């Protein structure tokens, strides 16, 4: 048997950590650069890129870029729109997809298996391939609102929310999770005369914390980071979300300090949320990989 000397072992351990740290630097440097640059005036920001100063809060550090970014674009409105659209879609999605998952797993009804397989087949249709026909469709859809019956959903909150409420992946996640819950619980509640709604709300939902968290996190990421869809269905500033609002900052001579300030403002809250719930985020992605 080979004798492993402590020195040799220590060296190997150090190499492993060195590799891990080097890779970590590759993943983290653009984000550190973004935050640090948002604090510097343009001239210094550009000068600092030739040294490690680019990643340090040194020199003429201030929040001026943030103040200027607020003057350039109605950032408060964009954030409000994004929070509203993301929040409402996530809530509606949890409700609609969990009830659908409940029906697919616990109830026997005609057409169930066929419909479930059609829904799961939509998993291989990327959104990008239906965006253009969907644009035509929503431009004609009727809506009953304060001003009676109107046609066309362009430039509204609903066009950003309703098409995204139900999706095959979230339904699949609920179906997988519900299959793992003990069926006896549901049958016992049924024998005791509970209605289906009571079983859903009082028995199944209280046991569904993990899948609700997973589905909420995945939907949150998709919705907050929406770009293509709001870009083509919202032309009015009033309804624009943060990612499309970025367009106020690309122009011929980009004021990089302001751009970095805007990027930092719309990214850091999400990163903080991620770091706080890191395990849940990673578990969410991992659960999409569970083979059904």
């Amino acid at each position, binding site marked *: 048997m080979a004798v492993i000397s402590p020195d040799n072992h220590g060296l190997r351990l150090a190499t492993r950590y060195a590799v891990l740290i080097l890779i970590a630097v590759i993943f983290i*440097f653009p984000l550190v650069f973004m935050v640090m640059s948002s604090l510097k005036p343009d001239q210094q920001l550009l000068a600092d890129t030739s040294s490690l100063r680019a990643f340090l809060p040194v020199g003429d550090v201030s929040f001026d870029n943030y103040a200027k970014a607020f003057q350039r674009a109605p950032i408060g409105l964009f954030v409000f729109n994004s929070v509203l659209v993301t929040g409402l879609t996530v809530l509606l999605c949890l409700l609609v997809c969990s009830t*659908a998952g409940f029906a697919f797993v616990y109830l026997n009804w005609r057409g169930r298996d066929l419909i479930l397989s059609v829904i799961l087949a939509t998993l291989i249709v990327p959104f990008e391939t239906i965006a253009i*026909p969907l*644009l035509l469709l929503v431009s004609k859809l009727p809506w009953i609102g304060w001003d009676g019956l109107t046609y066309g959903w362009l430039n509204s909150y609903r066009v950003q929310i309703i098409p995204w409420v*139900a999706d095959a992946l979230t339904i699949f996640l609920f179906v997988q999770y519900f299959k793992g819950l003990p069926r006896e619980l549901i049958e016992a509640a049924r024998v005791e005369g509970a209605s289906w709604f009571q079983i859903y709300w009082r028995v199944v939902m209280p046991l569904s914390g993990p899948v609700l968290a997973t589905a909420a996190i995945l939907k949150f990421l998709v919705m907050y980071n929406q770009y293509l869809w709001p870009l083509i269905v919202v032309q009015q500033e009033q309804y624009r979300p943060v990612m499309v609002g970025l367009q106020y900052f690309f122009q011929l001579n980009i004021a990089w300090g302001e751009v970095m300030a805007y990027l930092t403002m719309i990214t850091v809250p999400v990163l903080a949320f991620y770091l706080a719930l890191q395990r849940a985020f990673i578990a969410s992605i991992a659960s999409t990989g569970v083979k059904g």
Partner: protein
Amino acid sequence: MSSKLTTSNGAGWAFALPGIALIATFIIIPFFFAFALSLTNQRLISPNPTAFVGLQNYSDMLSVSVLQLAPETDEAGAIQRDADGSPVYPRVRDITRSDDFPQYRGMREWFRVHLGDTAHVVIARDVVFMKALVNTITFVLVVAPLQGGLALVLALLVNQKLRGITVFRAIYFMPVVVSIVVVSLLWRFIYSPDGGLLNNLLSALSFGAFEPVNWLGNPDTALPAIMGMSIWQAVGFHMVIWLSGLQTISPTLYEAAEIEGASKWQTFRYVTWPGLRHTAVLVLIVITMQAFALFAQIDVMTRGGPLDSTQTLVFQAVERGYGKQDISGGATISVVLFLMVLSISLVQRWLTRERT
């Protein structure tokens, strides 16, 4: 499992209906709508009624021909040469605009290859579409294996039993939660020709020998630059999927391999890899679908340029369907894209099928 207790058509439909109706309206109908629209001349807003045009949109996009051009000769039969000594060829424009060749009308040169003195000129009715098609396929063929492979390496690295390993896992995953739009704009700065971080880094590493490159402004480097950034952003996602696959492999198999004295490579080859079969299919299909959908990076970084070197199918679908309000053109591209996604996922499933 059909128990009397759980049979209820009314309740079943009531619970499932909202989800079914939304998916039908916003995914399934537009999906079939894309096929139907691609056979018409539908525009977003148009005074003229929509007409059925058959496969016209497809032939307008996919028509390709090859012209074989012999060099121009003078009266003595000698090949005419320009100042550099290269043979002079007839102009392609003279052929595509000539009444003698109505079949080539409206086509433009895509690229040419010289075999001997003969120039083989490939002409296409829609050169931008052809470039978008080739770029998209190139992007998929490069990014899918590279990103899948790197993700597996990262997964193996963070699957080690080391103190603090979850910190590294969390860091590698971080770019995934950042919007691709934010990442694209950030990397536009990193790739910038003057004062960009990448040029400065390469110049520092080579002690100033490296000549600054305009990464996104050069047709040869623009698409590779976007590939690199896309992999950086998304690799953590697939690392986590591989990791969940790795964790399903029973530790007793590894113990057995160790007792048998298997090398690290043998352990990977005969224990780890066979256990990752399903994960491999999933990772490849997901990456392929994401790669085919390439849009935001292009929209933020290059808008298809320089010289159409970063045109992609989705960017063209949006440019036509939304930008030019040519819904039928956008729908046609969408159908082509979907058929490619479908065939690639079928091929991947077949290649990785269970052999019994």
